[in-house]
């Protein structure tokens, strides 16, 4: 038996779970992975749809950089640029944003925007720096998604989604039409032209135009287009006019349109507009809206239709109602044989005549039939006064001859015509020309020629030709005269004369003053004699004087004041200047030789005087003089007696002196200062020059001969004195001296009364003192007195100078100075 032994237990540790110790950190890498994948997926989902655009060339398009823009907003980026298999075109792959992608359907247009400079301006300037970009255009409605597109090199005219209308124009000449030319409506750009192309048959140039939205509503069958390229020169009655539209249209060409009448019919599909060459053409063709629109008539003219051509207007009362369509001649059989007449076909628009739009041609003819019967006629008229262009005018003549609308089967109804008044104008012009012809132009020309000849002869005259030379000589003479030294010296001479005059006036003034002085001295002399007599009755006089002092002296002083003022006003400065001038003149005088001869004469005169003196001494005149002196002596004695009373007087005087003299002296000082300022220097200079003259005079030969001459003169004088002596002069002198002696005696007598006089004077002085004290130190009187004293001082200074001069040159006395 065997014990059941339990099987070996397989004990294995519990399997550690992988996740047991799994850290939360492991979330991080998974999160990062998730985020990265998320970003990647979002990027992939957002990268948009790839579309393929083929271009003829892709200049400037760079993969990864060039953007696709819609309304200038980036909506995609070029991802790749490749070629088609045959290298014919460039394929540009653009990754377009998902939100725009649904709108990019079959009609989407793409083009490359580059910087472009054209006559209409500069566009795409921003691409200069940023490089080109692809512009896309599509409408606003999501459509069937397309992947492949064909791009154009320039912006398409009718961009998808851009409202407007595309029309076709037909013209004969495409030279002035270029791609992108503007379409103008009243000068406003409302559309663009595309490139012109030829029609299938090659006869017409067709050009498509795109008219922008609100303006395309204006297009009706009444719309006419015309070319505005270039400019238009016109010369007419309105003058000279230049007409061009915008400069851009001048360069690139342009087309304008307008409605030529109201209420045009709407455009049928496939309608082709005619492009007229000028606005006039377009407007003139208002009426020709096709063969069915106008009613044809014929007009027969018997006069020249020179100036009329197809396309000219037919007017009724100035209103355009039709157009000339054809001119032709035709042979008409008349009773005088075949005759050539002119037929003009016109097309008349019944609507313009006021007939309803639905009027049939027959009704129109009926209307005209009636109108002709009532006087309507056709006639030729000029377009304007100056031009020879003609138009046809429908007029209603009340007094016209009866006529009918000629209607022949197979021919156009014929309107009757009347003679125009064109020839009248011609006749008048002819008459004017005849009158001009008749003018005696030849005679006038002859006269004019002879007149010109006469002028020519005159001009050729030698005398006349000499005139300019004479005039020049005259001018030269005049210039020489003016340049003459004598003439130029005149001003200086005038100045000298004026100076002389000044000097003369000064002399006269001086002379008058001297005379007055002389007379004054004479009067004084007389007064002294009077005083001599009056002094005997001095006491009474003194009393009177006392009274006078109290009453009249103030008035006298006032008078004195006035006199002093007058004296002050004397222009001494000028006087001194004049004196200086006089001295100069005297100087000159002295320089004269005649004057230098004087000393000789004087010497002789002195000699005579000497003899006279000798005679006088001999005749006892000296004795007489001695007696008069004795008399004087006596008088002096008397005076000395009288002077015993003087001390009192002296005291008074001293008082006056002490009180007032200092002020006086101060004033004198001021006066002296003033005197210093006077032109003494000039005076001294003059004196010096005078002395120099004297020096020369003395040094002259004549002066050296003076003694001899003086001798001669004295001899003559002696002879004269001898005559005088014989004439009793000395006796007269004796008598005179005797009288003087008597006079001195009288003086001596009168002096005896002096003590009393002195007493009176004493009182007088007291009175005077009172009077003087009544005047303020600064009163007018004082001032005037001081100024008067200043003048006196000046005079004294002058005298002293004169004395000094005489002292220096005593012989000046001899020469009258």
């Amino acid at each position: 038996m065997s014990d059941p032994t339990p099987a070996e237990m397989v004990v294995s540790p519990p399997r550690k779970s992988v996740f047991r110790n799994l850290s939360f950190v492991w979330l991080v890498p998974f999160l990062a992975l998730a985020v990265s994948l998320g970003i990647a997926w979002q990027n992939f989902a957002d990268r948009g749809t790839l579309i393929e655009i083929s271009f003829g060339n892709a200049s400037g398009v760079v993969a990864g950089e060039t953007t696709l823009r819609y309304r200038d907003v980036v909506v995609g980026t070029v991802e790749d640029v490749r070629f088609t298999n045959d290298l014919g075109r460039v394929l540009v792959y653009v990754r377009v944003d998902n939100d725009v992608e649904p709108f990019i359907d079959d009609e989407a247009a793409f083009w490359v925007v580059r910087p472009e400079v054209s006559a209409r301006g500069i566009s795409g300037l921003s691409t200069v720096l940023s490089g080109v970009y692809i512009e896309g255009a599509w409408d606003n409605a999501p459509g069937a998604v397309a992947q492949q597109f064909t791009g154009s090199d320039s912006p398409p005219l009718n961009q998808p989604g851009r409202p407007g209308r595309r029309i076709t124009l037909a013209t004969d000449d495409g030279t002035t039409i270029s791609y992108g030319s503007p379409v103008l409506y009243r000068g406003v750009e409302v559309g663009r032209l595309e490139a012109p192309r030829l029609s299938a048959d090659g006869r017409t140039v067709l050009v498509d135009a795109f008219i922008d939205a609100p303006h395309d509503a204006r297009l009706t069958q009444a719309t006419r287009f015309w070319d505005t390229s270039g400019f238009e020169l016109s010369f007419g009655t309105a003058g000279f006019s230049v007409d061009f539209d915008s400069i851009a249209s001048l360069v690139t060409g342009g087309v304008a349109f307008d409605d030529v009448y109201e209420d045009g019919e709407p455009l049928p599909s496939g309608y082709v507009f005619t492009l007229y060459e000028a606005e006039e053409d377009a407007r003139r063709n208002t009426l020709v809206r096709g063969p069915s629109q106008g009613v044809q008539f014929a007009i027969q003219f018997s006069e020249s239709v020179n100036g009329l051509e197809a396309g000219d207007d037919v007017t009724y009362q100035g209103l355009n109602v039709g157009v000339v369509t054809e001119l032709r001649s035709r042979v008409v059989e008349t009773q005088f044989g075949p005759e050539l007449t002119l037929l003009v076909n016109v097309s008349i628009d019944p609507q313009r005549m006021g007939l309803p739009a639905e009027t049939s041609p027959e009704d129109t003819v009926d209307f005209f039939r009636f109108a002709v019967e009532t006087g309507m006629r056709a006639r030729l008229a000029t377009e304007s006064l100056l031009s020879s262009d003609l138009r046809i005018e429908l007029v209603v003549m009340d007094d016209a001859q009866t006529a009918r609308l000629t209607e022949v089967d197979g021919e156009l109804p014929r309107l009757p015509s009347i003679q125009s008044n064109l020839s009248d104008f011609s006749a008048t012009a002819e008459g004017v020309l005849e009158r001009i012809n008749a003018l005696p132009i030849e005679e006038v020309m002859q006269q004019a020629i002879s007149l010109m000849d006469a002028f020519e002869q005159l001009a050729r005259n030698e005398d006349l030709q000499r005139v300019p030379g004479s005039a020049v000589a005259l001018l030269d003479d005049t210039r020489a005269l003016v340049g003459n030294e004598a003439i130029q010296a005149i001003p200086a001479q005038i100045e000298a004369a004026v100076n002389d005059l000044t000097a003369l006036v000064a002399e006269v003034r001086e002379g008058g003053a001297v005379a007055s002085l002389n007379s004054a001295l004479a009067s004084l002399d007389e007064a002294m004699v009077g005083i001599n007599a009056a002094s005997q009755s001095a006491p009474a006089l003194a009393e009177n004087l006392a009274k006078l002092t109290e009453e009249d002296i103030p008035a006298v002083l006032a008078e004195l004041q006035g006199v002093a003022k007058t004296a002050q006003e004397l222009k001494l400065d000028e006087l001194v200047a004049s004196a200086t001038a006089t001295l100069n003149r005297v100087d000159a005088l002295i320089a004269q030789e005649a004057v230098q001869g004087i000393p000789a004469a004087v010497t002789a005169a002195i000699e005579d005087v000497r003899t006279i003196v000798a005679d006088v001494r001999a005749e006892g005149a000296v004795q007489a003089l001695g007696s008069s002196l004795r008399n004087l002596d006596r008088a002096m004695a008397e005076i000395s007696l009288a002077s015993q009373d003087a001390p009192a007087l002296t005291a008074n005087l001293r008082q006056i002196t002490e009180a007032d003299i200092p002020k006086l002296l101060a004033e004198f000082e001021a006066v002296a200062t003033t005197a210093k300022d006077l032109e003494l220097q000039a005076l001294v200079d003059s004196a010096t020059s005078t002395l120099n003259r004297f020096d020369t005079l003395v040094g002259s030969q004549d002066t050296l001969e003076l003694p001899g001459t003086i001798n001669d003169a004295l001899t003559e004088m002696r002879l004269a004195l001898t005559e005088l002596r014989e004439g009793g002069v000395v006796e007269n002198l004796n008598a005179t001296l005797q009288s003087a002696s008597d006079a001195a005696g009288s003086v001596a007598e009168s002096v005896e009364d002096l003590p009393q006089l002195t007493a009176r004077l004493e009182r007088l002085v007291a009175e005077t003192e009172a009077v003087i004290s009544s005047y303020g130190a600064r009163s007018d009187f004082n001032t005037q007195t001081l100024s008067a004293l200043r003048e006196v001082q000046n005079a004294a200074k002058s005298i002293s100078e004169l004395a000094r001069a005489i002292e220096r040159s005593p012989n000046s006395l001899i020469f009258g100075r």
Partner: protein
Amino acid sequence: MANAEHAQHILTARAAGLVGCAECGHVYQLGTETCAVCGTRLTSRDMTSLQRVWAWLFAGMVVYIPANLYPMLRTTTFGNTQESTIVGGVFELMDHGSYGVALIVFFASVIIPVSKFIAIAYLASRVQRGKPGTTSHFHLYEVVEFIGRWSMIDVFVVAILSALVQLNFVASIHPGIAAVSFALSVAFTMISANSFDPRLIWDAPEGKPV
């Protein structure tokens, strides 16, 4: 083996029955819970370290992919926008002849991050497989930890350029997705390197960690 013999000379703290504080360096008996000095929880070995290292390393590698695929810089000059990736920028710099700068960028943005990935993966796998570590391994770890921050040069350059070059139309620079990715990648690898417990290097000869 030389390595084994060399390793025998090393006495780890764990083998000596000690545990050191990671913060202040104090040494305690094995089994002590917290550091008496600084209060840090004491662990002789961080057993979750390797997991965190691997996790952050993977995260760093994941975000390193968009960092290289997406543009780092979006430069706009005169309305012309250019986007450049890291490697593309390096080639562009070389085109312009700036070989020095290209070298620096290439070194900081490609060599260093990739080397870090490899170095960390190598160290972690060694520990994982219980291979004995040597001093040179520890040096490798130190280098990786030190150099990690320098990988941010690229990010700084982008940040500074974006802030400075804002001249509107003339020139402006914007950071791309790669800038963020790269910054994250660097940050993740730094965290990964930090998570690595270098003490595990020495444990390897003793066998698998418990």
